[in-house]
Every structure is written in structure tokens, then in C-alpha cells.
């Protein structure tokens, strides 16, 4: 298929359809409302379902009911809306249901603002709701990657029977870029959906639940979930190195839109003779700890700089990865302010040379 110019939000909606995600439940919220607007037109054309719910609380639970059918269901929202879905996400993780959640993040806490941010990192990667659980978290840096990861998310959700979250930001949702959709979504075979509650016609009744009143049974369920998360950590780590080389004096760790701005900084500094590498996590859970560690401990590396559109959340995972072997610094803005390349460059040079470029 030819490359076409699309807004991130609309491209995500189209990507979901191409991956078979034609059952969509949502409530409008800025800066991602175009996903729902686009799908309200497209889904009737492909025999899909679009329900505009009364609240994000209801959306989360509509997903719960719909996902139990074994069909590919999803929603999109932005930070405060995702917060309202946390109840259902916890239940779906407990009941092991596949669902795809798109979070086009905006500034917070509370109602915050409507401009881009990455301040839902803790919520995304630590579970967000109550109980012992994790969700797979994928962070696109371009509109094309938002397309690719949205499609992948449906596969991973079914593969692990687990919620998968796309952690985009308002910039990804609102920007327009050329994108290409595969003619057909190719994916490895998945196990049969013998867990789907679609009526006990010719088998014993199935119960989809997260309630285990017997503490031994509940612990057993949590251990099953934990083993699944360990498998994700073994098999689903994704990251992209950019200009990582033995000449690097520093490594930047950054994701999503912010990583692209850091690439601009790296290109500019390279032209001036300063070699910096970027390690861009694509999966925020599982986190590419080993890759960051290995890049950070290289002999010439003087420091690691984590750059985020938050007050510093992923930096804790970076510190954990580096294990104190190199200094880890943080630079970030939030509230909808996207750090400029100049800000990041100046921060980096100050750390390296007291403000003077080499």
C-alpha cells in the first residue's frame, strides 16, 4: 500500500482495524478524540462496533465484557480517562483477558492540561490499579511506529491474555506523518480461545473471574500471573539504539516523542565532534534494563541522561538498570511543555563540560 499522510490519532484507529480490532468502546477526551471520531465513521464500514459510553469507568467494563468473548476489543483515551479505567484494567488482568488500551498522554496530575506529556509512566508500568499485576506497555516515537505497535498490541494481548497499553503522547496523536499500512496483518499462530465465555453449549460452564475467596487459590492465581510477567520480561523487551558506539561520551535514555528530540540533539553534537548515543525503550514494561546497563558501562561513558516529559519517572528504572556504575542524571519538563533540543543540549553540555562543547 502507498504511503499516505495521516494524523497520529486517525492512523492508530486505522491500524486497529487492520489488525482485526473492530470492537471499540470509548469516551471522548482531548487530545485523542479523533481516534473515536475516525472510528465512528470507519467501523460501520467493516462490520465493527463503536459504543460511546457514559464514562471511562463504563468503557473499561464494556471492554471487560466484550474481551471475554475472545474478540479483539480496544479503547483509546487520555490520562484522566485511563485513570478511570484502572478498576477494570485490574480486573481484566486478574481474569486474564486480552484488551488493547491506547493512552495518548497529557499533562497531570488531576485534570492537568490537554498538551503532550509522559507523566503516566508510573501508572502505566506499575499496574496502575490495585493488586499484583502488570500490563505490557509499548511507546511509539513516530506515527508509523504507532501504527505498527497498535497492530502488534492486539497480537500480544491475545498471546499473553493480558491488557496491552500503547503509551503515546499528545504530540504523537496530533502530528501528521506519512504512514504505510501492510496489506495484510501477518502474525504467528495463537492458541485456541478455549477460555471465551460464549455459552456452554457443548462443554462445562466457564467462569471468567478475578474473585478467589480462598487465599491459597488467590495466591496461586497471582503466581500464575507473575510467571506470565517473567515470560514477558524474557521475550518482549523492545528498544532501539541510535548512534550507540564506543566513542560515546554519554548515553541518553528517552522514549516516544522526546526520544526524537534527543536524536536531533545527538545529530547536532555529532557535527560538532561530541559523540552521544541514545537508548530508546520501545517497551516500557518490560523495560530494557540489560541494554541500558551494557551501553552505560562502556569505558568512555561519563554519564547517563534520562530525558522525559515528566518530573522524572522512568529515571528510576534507568537508575535501577545502571546499578550505580555510572552517574544517572535527569532532565524533563511537564505540564504540556515539550523540551526543546536546545534545552536538552545545554543540559547535556553542562553536565559533560560545564557548558563548553568539545
Amino acid at each position, binding site marked *: 500500500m502507498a504511503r499516505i499522510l495521516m494524523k497520529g490519532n486517525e492512523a492508530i484507529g486505522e491500524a486497529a482495524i487492520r489488525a482485526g480490532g473492530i470492537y471499540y468502546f470509548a469516551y471522548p477526551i482531548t487530545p485523542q478524540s479523533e481516534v473515536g471520531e475516525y472510528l465512528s465513521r470507519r467501523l460501520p464500514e467493516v462490520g465493527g462496533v463503536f459504543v460511546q459510553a457514559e*464514562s471511562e469507568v463504563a468503557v473499561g*467494563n464494556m471492554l*471487560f465484557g466484550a474481551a*471475554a*468473548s475472545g474478540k479483539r476489543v480496544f479503547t483509546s483515551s487520555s490520562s484522566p480517562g485511563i485513570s478511570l479505567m484502572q478498576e*477494570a484494567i485490574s480486573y481484566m488482568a486478574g481474569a486474564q483477558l486480552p484488551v488493547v488500551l491506547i493512552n495518548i498522554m497529557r499533562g497531570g496530575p488531576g485534570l492537568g492540561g490537554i498538551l503532550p506529556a509522559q507523566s503516566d509512566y508510573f501508572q502505566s508500568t506499575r499496574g496502575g490499579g490495585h493488586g499484583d499485576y502488570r500490563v505490557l506497555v509499548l511507546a511509539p516515537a513516530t506515527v508509523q511506529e504507532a501504527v505498527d505497535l497498535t497492530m502488534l498490541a492486539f497480537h500480544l494481548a491475545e498471546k499473553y491474555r493480558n491488557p496491552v497499553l500503547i503509551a503515546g503522547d499528545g504530540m504523537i496523536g496530533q502530528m501528521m506523518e506519512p504512514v504505510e499500512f501492510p496489506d495484510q496483518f501477518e502474525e504467528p499462530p495463537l492458541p485456541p480461545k478455549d477460555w471465551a465465555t*460464549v455459552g*456452554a453449549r457443548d462443554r462445562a460452564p466457564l467462569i471468567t*473471574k478475578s474473585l478467589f475467596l480462598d487465599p491459597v487459590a488467590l495466591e496461586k492465581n497471582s503466581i500464575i500471573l507473575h510467571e506470565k510477567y517473567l515470560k514477558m520480561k524474557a521475550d518482549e523487551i523492545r528498544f532501539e539504539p541510535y548512534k550507540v558506539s564506543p566513542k560515546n561520551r554519554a548515553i541518553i535514555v528517552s522514549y516516544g516523542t522526546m526520544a526524537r528530540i534527543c536524536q536531533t540533539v545527538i545529530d547536532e553534537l555529532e557535527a560538532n565532534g561530541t559523540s552521544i548515543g541514545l537508548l530508546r525503550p520501545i517497551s516500557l514494561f518490560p523495560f530494557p534494563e540489560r541494554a541500558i546497563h551494557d551501553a552505560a558501562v562502556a569505558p568512555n561513558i561519563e554519564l547517563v541522561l534520562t530525558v522525559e516529559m515528566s518530573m522524572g519517572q522512568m529515571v528510576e528504572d534507568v537508575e535501577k538498570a545502571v546499578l550505580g556504575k555510572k552517574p544517572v542524571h535527569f532532565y524533563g519538563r511537564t505540564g504540556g511543555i515539550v523540551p526543546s533540543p536546545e534545552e536538552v543540549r545545554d543540559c547535556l553540555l553542562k553536565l559533560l563540560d560545564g557548558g563548553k562543547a568539545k
Partner: protein
Amino acid sequence: MSEVTAQATTITFSRPESFSDAVTHYCPGCTHGIIHRLVAEAIDELGIRGRTVGIAPVGCSVLIYNYFRTDFLESPHGRAPALATGLKRVSPELIIFTYQGDGDLASIGMSEIVHAANRGEKFTTIFVNNAIYGMTGGQMAPTTMPGQVTATSPYGRNVEEAGWPIRMCELLSSLRTPAYIERVAVHTPQNIVRAKRAIKTAFQNQVDGLCFSLIEVLSTCPTNWGLTPCEATQWVQTNMSPYYPLGVFKKPEPRLEV
């Protein structure tokens, strides 16, 4: 003699196929068991067991899935109508029912039930009203009667502070969309027969492709009311029935063009 034998072996009453053989956890004198059975009988008589999925609530009937031989989902508190909406929209061939208590449906889940009803979702809700929170130990519910003593209204429900009990059938029947809303009770054999008829009609509506149906059932809670089972049935008659009148509040109407 052979005729007598034949009569003696004719089965006139047995456990519904849709019922499991588990022993329920309900308190003596609680009418959840009767209501469960009426639902199971309706499912059997309509021949829909194999394509029925129940949505369990949080509350006394949280373990309802142990007592039925149909698929079940366990819902978060109050959200059963949202789960039912999701499942029915993606699998319209299924017969879906929620089974909810008064705390679940009229308090924490008020938004979900109102909007599901107003959208005309094609599922069936069995709403069990016993005027109290049962499972958490007898606290005040939105349906608790004026003056009724509960664990959190020790001086009796004060309507000046807590408002008057919410009448869900009246509230939901003010909406144009829902197909069928009826309030029944199960404190006498006569009422049980009427309740059965209403529950079966609500499921029949779904089989026929009609939109949302809700049956409210006045139920008992001897344990938390502090009454004997017999006194509890009388309490339904004297205290609840006058405020929660039985009857049909909404019937299916011909589809109106917008």
C-alpha cells in the same frame, strides 16, 4: 397397579437443568435461592442455556456462578450492565443477564444501569431489592426504608439526611427506550408464580430481539433485618410493598421512528 406405578414415577418437579447441584451459601429465609430458581426455570423453558451468559454482581449473590450451569463473568461492583453491554454488542447471538442487588445497581452502579437502559441494550437485568446491604453486614442501602435501622443508620434512616429510598422501576420507566420493566415479589407462593412469569417474559423479550428488560424482585434479608424468616416475609408485605408497588411499569412499544 401398573397405572399407579406409572403415576408414581412421573417426574413433576425436579432441579432445572440450568441449576448446578451446589449448596448455596445464602442465609436461612433469604429469597435469593427462590429467585435463582425462577431464573433457571425461565432459561430451561426457553431452551437457551447453551447460549446464555450471566454477569455476576458484587454483594450477597457474588457467587451466583457456582449455582448455574451457564457461562458467567464476575463483574466489578455495579458495573455488570457495562460488562453486559460489551459482551452483547460483540456477540449479539448470546442471551445475557445481569443479576444485581440494590447496593450494586441503585448505588455504585446507578450510572451503568441508567445508561444501559437508556441505550436500550438487549440484555435482561434481575434486580434483587432487599432494602439493605447484605454481604457487608447490613448497612444502609439507597433502598432502605425511612426509619429502618441498619448498621449505618442506627437511629433509623433519616430522609432529611439520606433522602427517600430510590424506586428504580419508577426511575427507569421514565426513560423512553427500555422495553419492559416490572416489579414483583417472592414472599408468597402467589407472588412467586407472578415473578416467574415476569422473569420469563424478560428473557423472552431478549430472545425476540427486544431491548432492555428489568425485573425488580422484592426480597428478604432476615439476618440483617433481625427478623425470623416468617417475620421477614411479613415485613416485605407491610413495609416494602406499600412504597415499592408491584406491577408492570413499562411494556414493549411499537418501534417509533425518530
